[in-house]
């Protein structure tokens, strides 16, 4: 296999993992409250900046940073739920839309105010930038670490959803919140949990993003957030494995687009991605594994 191809595959895996991490949270949240959370991508940004801050402050040992970022992401996700979503439960979808969009704008601009608009440069410790030979190609260690960790998270989460009582409760609420309440399930607490979980994973994606690309800025989360939405759609809304598969499909498509077309087209990367989004929404909105949504007029 040509080393260029290997390089591209690894890139696809790496980018796909990032999208998958964000998409999982997105899908979980959507499954439970049936709302598109525009602010989800910004959790990636929060995770990235948290990583930056922790690394720069040099207070915490390296090993602890991912855990702190996960915890911080959980808290941030829960906070967003409390502030933005709690108040609009039961409101029509358009209201929910506007509120989450507003929340996203607020978060992005708050970050601009407090963190400044200058992109920050940032590097993981040397060891992660180490390049390993792989079948003739030269691959960065981090690009291998990311997919492995992502798959571990995915497996862990899937086990959680399938086996634990809370996981079953989440699935129940996604199907029928009214009946779930009759079981003594507190919908409010569950939604909070789901937001927290999604936030934690998105923040982790932010940590990886920062390490992989080396540069962060307050507006960095919006586009990946939208792309994660696309990944969720590809895989099928409400399906956890779908979100993961969708993330990888998107990651590979994007890399393939840039990697295998002549370079003058690579600037059209985002047009390709969002053109794809529009196409899928038109042609097969339920994606690969999702059930068709309730009837639309």
């Amino acid at each position, binding site marked *: 296999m040509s080393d260029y191809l290997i390089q591209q595959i690894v890139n696809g895996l790496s980018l796909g993992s990032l999208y998958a991490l964000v998409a999982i949270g997105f899908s979980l949240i959507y499954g439970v409250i049936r709302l598109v959370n525009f602010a989800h991508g910004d959790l990636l940004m929060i995770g990235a900046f948290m990583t930056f801050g922790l690394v720069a402050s040099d207070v915490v040992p390296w090993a602890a940073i991912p855990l702190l970022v996960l915890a911080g992401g959980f808290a941030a996700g829960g906070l967003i739920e409390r502030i933005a979503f709690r108040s609009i439960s039961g409101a029509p979808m358009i209201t929910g839309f506007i509120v989450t969009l507003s929340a996203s704008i607020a978060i992005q601009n708050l970050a601009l105010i407090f963190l400044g608009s200058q992109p920050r440069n940032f590097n993981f410790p040397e060891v992660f930038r180490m390049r390993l030979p792989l079948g003739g190609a030269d691959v960065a260690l981090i690009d291998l670490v990311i997919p492995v960790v992502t798959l571990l998270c995915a497996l862990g989460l899937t086990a959680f959803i399938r086996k634990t009582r809370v996981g*079953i409760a989440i*699935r129940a609420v996604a*199907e029928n919140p009214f009946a*779930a*309440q009759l079981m003594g399930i507190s919908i409010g607490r569950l939604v909070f949990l789901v937001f927290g979980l999604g936030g934690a994973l998105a923040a982790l994606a932010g940590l990886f993003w920062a390490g992989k690309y080396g540069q962060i800025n307050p507006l960095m989360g919006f586009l990946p957030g939208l792309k994660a939405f696309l990944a969720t759609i590809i895989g099928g809304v409400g399906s956890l494995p779908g979100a993961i598969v969708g993330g990888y499909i998107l990651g590979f498509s994007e890399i393939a687009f840039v990697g295998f077309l002549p370079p003058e087209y690579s600037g059209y990367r985002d047009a390709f991605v969002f053109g794809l989004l529009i196409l899928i929404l038109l042609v097969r909105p339920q994606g690969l594994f999702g059930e068709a949504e309730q009837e639309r007029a």
Partner: protein
Amino acid sequence: MLRVEGLHVNRGRTKVLQGIDFAVETGEIATLIGANGAGKTTTLMTLSGLLPISSGHVTLQTPDGSFDIGATSPVDLVRAGIVHAPEGRQIFGRLSIEENLQLGAFLANDKARVARAVADVYERFPILGERRTMPAGNLSGGEQMMLAIGRALVAEPKLLLLDEPSLGLAPQITEEIFDFLEKLNREQGVTMLIVEQNAMLALELANRAFVIENGRIVLQGTGDELLDDPAVFEAYLGVG
């Protein structure tokens, strides 16, 4: 066990319940019958804490204590022993039968006890046991009703609220279900409040019955009394 006094409940701007009074004694089967829209489901939803009380008092009295339903959250009410099996059964079709039953005991902490309760349900309803890992959505209407009841039983209810158990079920299955409920009450002393449109079956089963019309209780008595009552006969038992 349950005392309802002067209960007024509004849904939006509609005054659904306009001052109802009734009581359910421990160990008895009570039934609330009435036409569509009379307020039956609203009553049950209020009792399980899902609808706010506009005025009036509802008190639940159990060995564990006394609960003012208007001031208790739905989660705490389940913990206190009020279990509501809703209209249309509403089992979780995408989850397996086993998972449905486990959800019934969501608040329970004693795993062994829950396992025993689930095993109990499988004993009473063998068909559920056979299909325990299959999605509940594949079950027939009657089987879903069994699952719904089983799910409620796993929660070890002190007061079981059933909303139209006969809805959409064939007469034979309905008979079986009602037989089962009778046995449950007789052998285990489970107190029940059943809301039904099928007045005949409900009155045959119940110890005490209340007739609700336009948000008010217009008649009450024992099941047999109401069965013999010509007014009830005309209004609710004449057809079907």
